[in-house]
């Protein structure tokens, strides 16, 4: 089964791209009203910061540009979102609608520790320092 590991970095890149873009959609709905169907920016400074972290962080993770920084901010924001918004609504993530928040939080935490991988802007720019040890 180890032969599969040869493609792990490529699949990681695709997963990072898809999850990053899905995350940016949340920020896009709030700030740009695109994709349609959003409710606008939530009130207060935290809502504004959150929306921008979602939009910018999502794209940074998607394209692998300053990935670890973007992933750290995004993971932190999702942890705050989970405990401030969803945790009050029930214990299980499946019931309190916090499942995407948990998912984003832990996936981005993994991205923070794992790095951007070989197929990313980081790897192109900082050839030696940012490439993960594979």
């Amino acid at each position, binding site marked *: 089964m180890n032969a599969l590991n040869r493609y792990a970095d490529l699949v990681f890149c695709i997963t990072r791209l898809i999850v990053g873009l899905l995350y940016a959609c949340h920020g896009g709905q709030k700030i740009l009203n695109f994709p349609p169907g959003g409710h606008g920016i939530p009130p207060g400074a935290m809502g504004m910061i959150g929306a921008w972290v979602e939009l910018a962080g999502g794209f940074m993770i998607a394209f692998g540009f300053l990935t670890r920084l973007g992933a750290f901010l995004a993971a932190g924001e999702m942890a705050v979102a989970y405990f401030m918004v969803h945790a009050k609504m029930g214990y299980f993530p499946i019931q309190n609608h916090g499942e995407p928040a948990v998912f984003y939080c832990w996936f981005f935490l993994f991205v923070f520790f*794992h790095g951007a991988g070989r197929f990313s802007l980081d790897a192109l720019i900082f050839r030696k320092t940012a490439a993960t040890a594979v």
Partner: protein
Amino acid sequence: MKSLNRFAEPVYCIMRLLVGLMFACWGAKLILGLFGGTPAPPKPILILAGWIELVGGLLIAIGWLTRIAAFLCSGTMAVAYFLVHAPHGFFPIANQGELAVFYCFIFLFIFFYGPGRWSIDELIQGKTSSSP
């Protein structure tokens, strides 16, 4: 920044655990009627999906037969997305298919990445299943 990579494996293990358990919750909802259950008795295809979600989710969580379980779960979620969610709109955020996309791709990644160092597979097989 490379020193962070030392902790990639433990974080991968925790992520696998949480994602697997959350996925198993959907199976438990369909099959065991937990977490509110389903409004109507599920169709045969949903029962099959429910068992894959419940068993596959738990297997991925503990890291046992991880790659096989991840492959099946990923396929299930791809079918779920195109059968259920895709007709409702183009954007996953609008057609409620965001979680299906997530699960599909994370399990695809797990299929290729392997169970990691901290898993039952690794305990059983020792050398052969460890990821690079």
